[in-house]
């Protein structure tokens, strides 16, 4: 039996003289420190990495649907020649926001959600290093995303493309407030990414379970570590760029004013120094996911763990030296172009290593085709196609034919949808029983997989042809005159692509149906449904608030697997020595006596709320800047003065009828 520390039950005794019991719910009313473990308050003020992870996932999923609708509108417009579904202005807003939403509000936060939920579990920690900062990051992301999307109703969304090239994004050429919203919104979500990155790096480096050396860390945690380092160094660069943009648009600075002698390429450099690492920020978490999924369902360890780790780090490192390949047509001069062309080819090598390692992980295995596994294999296939088309535009002269055509659109959708998104779906199916205690329906899952795969290849496959035959990107319409002749002309492929988009939407819809069906009817999943290998499966599903009753001591990579199986070193034969339930029971038997968990807090959400207020202030009225600024000061100081664990005085005494929100008698964990 574990005793979870909680505040004493004696009422506060005031000073000397007459003692009067003061209950916080009386003294502070709704301003008391939130301590509830149930109800909506337990979510809104939570600092628990698991709740935050789930919220990250849910909100990111919502934005995925938003971005998906935007994509469908784009494809509807392009289904036929001279499309009239959207006006030119709206079309420009649509593709700008589609990319922005998918990159900043779906893939990045979804990866953050997985990382938040799983990293502490995978390294045997009870929470992240800075739980309140974690909550703050989530709210920044949510409010930043909402702020960004309110531009739709406040004068029009950003219309400069997600790369926001200058001077086209200057106030003269884009007079609506859309780009102001875009810049400030990304600034706010950037804070989320930066705080999240600091938090996760410290967590991973500092809070590993005893015995877990860096080279014994689960590969997903490794990839997340690399991504967070990329974020820590990439976010400040885009921050600078966004500040320059804001100063230019809101305060009349001249950074991109060509008439004053400015060089528009400055923006491109700043943007892509951030933007290229960003590509790896999007895709590496999914690489981590499939690197977890493939071994589990092949029943053998990841082939060349060290190589996968080092290639991940190498991709992260080399990713800084290739940004100008987005600018081969910008006029950098042949020397720069040659250098960046070579460095871009270099980065194909570690990427290739990963593909090879995944394939060799499957080789000789005992493959179990669950939906998670199928999505993972889908990722290898689709990403390979995307990677190879990437090699063709690492060749700079070839790229000058391909850049800004649909061929590029095809390439990065194979990389980002085929890489990042399929990995995310694989992760959903793999970890759903861990997170929610129920397994997603495999039957619907298979449908989900096949419809998604067919839809994606129909949508993005034809774009290779469309692009190579000369259709540029970001065009609100195409014409028959430039579409060529024959049955398979560009019009045909555009129609195929548009219908593929709707099939793809059905695939995503099937996932949502699966979630609903599973939530409503599925029975509780077994403790270890996949015969998994890493620490996150060594606790109950869903995990307790404090994750582990006792922190496991790690002896090897795939610690959980090795506690279940014993390997005969001569024959290599495996013998099952324990069930998951037995492993868990063993941990519970040695439960820690005192576990402190950080208490919920108001201040992360208040501080995050202050930022969009300041954002609206910059756009509409200076007085809101002051209000938001005061709120920032207030919440930061309140945060500083607030201890991470609630005082005794924050809880109501037991048996108080007014202890409506959990009271002090709540158990943080209940088990025998």
């Amino acid at each position, binding site marked *: 039996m574990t005793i979870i520390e909680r505040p004493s039950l004696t009422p506060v005794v005031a000073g000397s003289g007459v003692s009067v019991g003061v209950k916080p719910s009386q003294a502070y009313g709704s301003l008391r420190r939130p301590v509830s473990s149930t109800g909506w308050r337990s979510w809104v003020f939570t600092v628990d990495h698991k709740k935050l992870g789930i919220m990250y996932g849910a909100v990111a999923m919502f934005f995925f649907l938003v971005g998906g609708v935007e994509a469908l509108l784009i494809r509807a417009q392009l289904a036929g020649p001279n499309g009239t579904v959207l006006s030119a202005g709206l079309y420009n807003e649509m593709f700008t926001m589609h990319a922005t939403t998918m990159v900043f509000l779906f893939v990045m936060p979804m990866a953050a959600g997985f990382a938040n939920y799983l990293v502490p579990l995978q390294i045997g920690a009870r929470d992240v290093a800075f739980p309140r900062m974690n909550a703050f990051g989530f709210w920044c992301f949510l409010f930043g995303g909402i702020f960004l999307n309110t531009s739709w109703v406040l004068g029009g969304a950003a219309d400069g493309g997600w790369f926001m090239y200058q001077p086209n994004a200057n106030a003269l050429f884009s007079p609506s407030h859309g780009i102001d919203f875009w810049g400030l919104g990304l600034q706010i979500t950037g804070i989320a990414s930066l705080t999240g990155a600091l938090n996760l790096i410290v967590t991973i480096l500092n809070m590993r379970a005893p015995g877990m050396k860096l080279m014994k860390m689960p590969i997903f945690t490794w990839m997340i570590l690399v991504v967070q380092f990329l974020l820590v160094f990439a976010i400040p660069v885009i921050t600078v760029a966004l500040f320059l943009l804001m100063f230019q648009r809101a305060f009349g600075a001249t950074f991109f004013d060509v*008439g004053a002698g400015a060089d528009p390429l400055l923006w491109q450099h700043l943007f892509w120094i951030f933007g290229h690492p960003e590509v790896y920020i999007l895709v590496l978490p999914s690489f981590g996911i499939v690197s977890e999924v493939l071994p589990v369902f092949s029943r053998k360890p990841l082939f060349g763990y060290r190589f996968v780790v080092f290639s991940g780090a190498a991709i992260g490192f080399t990713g800084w030296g290739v940004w100008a390949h987005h600018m081969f047509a910008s006029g950098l001069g042949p020397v720069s172009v040659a250098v960046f062309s070579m460095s871009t080819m270099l980065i194909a090598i570690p990427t290739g290593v990963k593909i090879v390692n995944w394939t060799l992980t499957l080789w000789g295995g005992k493959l179990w085709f669950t939906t998670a596994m199928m999505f993972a294999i889908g990722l290898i296939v689709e990403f390979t196609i995307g990677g190879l088309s990437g090699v063709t535009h690492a060749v700079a002269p070839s790229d000058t034919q391909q850049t800004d055509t649909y061929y590029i659109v095809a390439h990065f959708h194979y990389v980002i949808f085929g890489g990042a998104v399929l990995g995310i779906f694989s992760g959903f199916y793999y970890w759903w029983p861990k997170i929610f205690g129920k397994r997603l329906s495999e039957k619907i899952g298979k449908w989900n997989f096949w419809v998604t795969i067919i839809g994606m290849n129909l949508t993005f496959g034809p774009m290779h042809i469309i692009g190579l035959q000369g259709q540029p990107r970001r065009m609100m319409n195409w014409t028959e005159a430039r579409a060529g002749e024959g049955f398979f002309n560009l019009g045909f492929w555009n129609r195929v692509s548009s219908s593929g988009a709707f099939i793809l939407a059905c695939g995503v819809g099937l996932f949502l149906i699966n979630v609903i069906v599973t939530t409503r009817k599925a029975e509780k999943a077994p403790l270890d449904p996949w015969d998994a290998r890493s620490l996150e499966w060594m606790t109950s599903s869903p995990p307790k608030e404090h994750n582990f009753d006792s922190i496991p001591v790690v002896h090897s990579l795939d610690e959980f697997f090795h506690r279940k199986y014993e390997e005969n070193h001569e024959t290599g034969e495996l013998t099952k020595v324990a069930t998951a339930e037995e492993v868990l029971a063993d941990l519970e038997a040695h439960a820690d006596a005192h576990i402190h968990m950080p208490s919920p807090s108001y201040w992360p959400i208040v501080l995050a709320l202050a930022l969009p207020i300041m954002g609206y202030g910059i756009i509409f009225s200076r007085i809101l800047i002051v209000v938001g600024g*005061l709120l920032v000061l207030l919440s930061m100081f309140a945060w500083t003065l607030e201890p991470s664990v609630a005082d005794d005085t924050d809880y109501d005494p037991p048996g108080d009828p007014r202890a409506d929100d959990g009271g002090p008698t709540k158990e943080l964990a209940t088990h025998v």
Partner: protein
Amino acid sequence: MFTTGSKLFLGATSLAVAALVVMGVTNAGDIGWTATVGLIGAVVALAFLTGINFFVRDGNVSSADPANVFDAAAAQRPPGRSIWPLIGAVGLGLIVVGAISTPVVFKAGVVVILAVMLEWLVHAWSEGASSDAAYNQSVRQRLMHPLEFPVLAAVGLTVMIYSFSRIMLFVSKAGSPVVFGVLAAVILLGGVLYAYSPGVKKSIAAGVCVIAGLGLVSTGAVMAIDGQRATEPHEIIANDSSICTSNEPTEADARASQELAAKSNSAAIITLHGGKLSAHQIAVPGELSTITLPRSGVSNIVFVNDDSAKVRLTAHMGTFDTATIVNGKPTTATSITCTTLVRQGGRQLLTLIYPKSSRALKSGDAYTLAVPGVESSVITVVVP
């Protein structure tokens, strides 16, 4: 006699009357429609509130029931000391002064009043939390400290920094580093003295600090009002034909930059070499004496001086009619711009926009790039 509430309203009423009087006197009776209605309205309303409060005894239990008056919780202890009425009065004063002087003061008054209302509210509310004063105090602090600390710090910091910068702007340019250094040295020395003389009482040290702070702020205020030292805008050479047509050094030339950050893909590079001016354009073979530049586009021209004399490059941008008509004929204006003096080996950038085509030039006029004193070789610019 008077209840607490009615005292407040009575004070406010008198202030409003005073404001009305002061305003009337300073504006010689003509205080405008809004001020009249506003202030007279305020007097009437506040007087009414005074009466009501007095009549209902601040909404407390009737004084006709003396037992309750003494037994009520509020009556058990005298209310704690509070600074807010005082500050509230200051705020009111600011509003009154602001109403008749400057809007800034008025706004400051409003902010102070709002702050007082908030503080007072929380204070009153915390006093009702329990019967234990210390606990109530902690309740109040927990809520208000996060707000008070940063705001006080921010305001204090701003006032100090602003005052100090005014002092710096008051003293001469040569004196400013001295003042600056002296202040820093005093701070540092003060710190050292205090650190290594444990005998000094805290109160004395605090007193010294307060006096120093007040001194700084008041000096700053005096100097801000007294005005800054005269700062003349630097002379710049832009578009000044008297400067551009000669190689006489001006103040702007004295310390001009000679290097520009890498500027590739410029529209033209103009070189003065051996007393001869020549142009080079990307991808156009040979040394040119005529260059084509786009109309209305931005052209970045790099000027390189290989000769020993310090010279400038002057762009003659044409003579055109203006909208002003004198004696039935439009007057003309000549547009000219130039670089600062460029020493041997130096480079300068000239960013030009030709809004009109060469076709629009008057006969005999031409777009040119020239170096004053080197009339023999001039670069002609064609704008299609």
